[in-house]
C-alpha cells in the first residue's frame, strides 16, 4: 500500500518486529516455564536421585541464562535505539532568536 512516493507500511521492519516480538514474548514465557519446571523437579528429587537432580539444575541454569540474555538484549536495544535525525537550522520549531525589546 503506498500513497505518493513512499510506502505507509515498512513491510521489512514490520516483519522483523513480528519475529523479534514472537521470540521475545513467547520464547521467554516458555523458557521461564521450563525454568520453574526444572527447579520444581530438582526440589522433588532432592533426596533420592542425585544424578537426576543435577540434570534438572543444569536445565534450570540454561533456561535462567536464556532469560537473563533476553533482558540484556532488551536493555541493549533501549540504549542503542536509532537516533532521530538532528533538526536542521530551518526545521521544526526553529526560528531566529526573537528580538528582545
Amino acid at each position, binding site marked *: 500500500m503506498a500513497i505518493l512516493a513512499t510506502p505507509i507500511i515498512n513491510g521489512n*521492519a514490520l516483519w522483523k518486529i513480528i519475529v523479534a516480538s514472537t521470540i521475545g514474548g513467547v520464547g*521467554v514465557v516458555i523458557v521461564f516455564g521450563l525454568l520453574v519446571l526444572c527447579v520444581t523437579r530438582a526440589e522433588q528429587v532432592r533426596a533420592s536421585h542425585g544424578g537426576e537432580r543435577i540434570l534438572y539444575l543444569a536445565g534450570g541454569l540454561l533456561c535462567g541464562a536464556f532469560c537473563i540474555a533476553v533482558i540484556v538484549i532488551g*536493555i541493549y*536495544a*533501549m540504549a542503542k535505539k*536509532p537516533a532521530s535525525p538532528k533538526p536542521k537550522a530551518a526545521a*521544526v520549531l526553529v526560528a*531566529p532568536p526573537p528580538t528582545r*525589546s
Partner: protein
Amino acid sequence: MARVSASDVILALVVVTGVCFDFTNGFHDTANAVATAIATGALKPRVAVAMSAVLNLVGAFISIKVAATIAKGIVNAHVLSGTSGLSLVFAALIGAIIWNLTTWYFTMPSSSSHALIGGVIGATIVASSVKQVKVHGLLSSVIFPALFSPIICGLVAMVGTFSAYRLIKRIGENQARKGYRYGQIGSAALVSLAHGTNDAQKTMGVITLALIAHGDISANHFYVPFWVKLACATAIALGTAIGGWRIINTMGNRLTNIESPQGFSAESASASVILASSYYGYPLSTTQVVSGGVLGSGLGKQLASVHWNVVGQMVTAWVLTIPAAGVMGGIAWEISRIFGKGSASGSIVIGFLAAVAAGMIFQLAQRNKIGAHDLDRSGQAEAEAESARDGGGPPLPAGAAA
C-alpha cells in the same frame, strides 16, 4: 535589569507545561508496567509503583537519543516556527494534559503521545489550515502503528499464555503461580525501563526544541541540556510514584481476570513489542501495546474471561484521543489568539484556565476515589504461596486447562 519579552514568558510556560505533561504521562502510564503485577499480587501496590518510578527515572537517562521533534513529519515545519510556534506548542500541551486528565477521570488507559500529537494537529488546523497536516506522516507514524501494535502484542501474549498453561499441567499449579509471580517482577521492571526511555524523551524533545526556537541553543549543535533531562526524568518518575490507581484498576482487574502466568505473558509480550518497534524505528504507544497484551493473555487462557464492554470503552477512548485532544488544543489556541497572536497574556490565560480545569477534574475524581489499598492482592498471593509450601492450595480456575 533585562526586560522580559513575550517569547521569554511563553518559553517559561512551555517548559513548565511540558514538565506537567510529563508528570501526567507518568501517572497515566503507571498501569502499563505494574497493573498485572499488582493484580496477581506479585508486588504490593506501593512497592510496584516505587519500583516503576525508579526505573522510569533510570530509563530516561539510559538513552539520550532524543526524538528530535514530537510532530516531525505530521505538520508542516514552518507552522511551528517563531514565537507563534511556541504558543502553538503550548496550546498543544494544554490540549494533551486536559485529555490525559479526562481519560484518567473516566479510568480509561489512552496514549499520552497521541494526545500530544492530537493537540499539535488541532492547534495547527485552527492556527493555519488543514493543509498543513501531513496525512502520509500521520498514517505511517501514528495511525498504522496504533492499529498493528496492539494486535501483534495481543497475538504474542495469547500464544505465550496458551503455552504457559500447557506447561503448568507439568509443573503443578501452585508452584507455577509462585514461579511466574517472580518472573512478573522482572518483566514489569523491563516495561518500566522501556517506558522511561520512550516517554520521558518526548517531552525532552519538546522543551529542547522550544529552547532552540527561543535562541538559547544552536540548532547546529543540538543537545539536550542536563537540567531538561533531569526535570523530565524527575517529573515522569514523580508522576509514576503517585500511582494512577484508577487506570491500574482498569488494566489489571477490569479488562480480564489475570493470574500470574497471564501477567507474565502480557508483560513479556509488551516489552518485546515495545523494544523491537523502538529498535526498528516504529513509534508506538506503550499504553495500547500493554492493553493489547493484557487482552491477548485473557484470550489465551479463556475467551469468555475478557470483559468486552470495558474493551469497547477503551477502544473508543483510543479512537477519540487524537480528535479530542485536537479540539482542546484548537480551543486553547483560539482563546490565546483573542489576546493577539504570539502574545504572552493569551498563553497565561489558557494556562490559568487549564489549571482550573485540572483542579476540577481532580476534585470530581475524589468522589469515587480508588487507592492503593483497594488493589492490594499481596495477602492472597502470600496465602497461596503458604499453601504451595504445604503441597496443597486452591486449584487454578477452569481456564487453566485451556
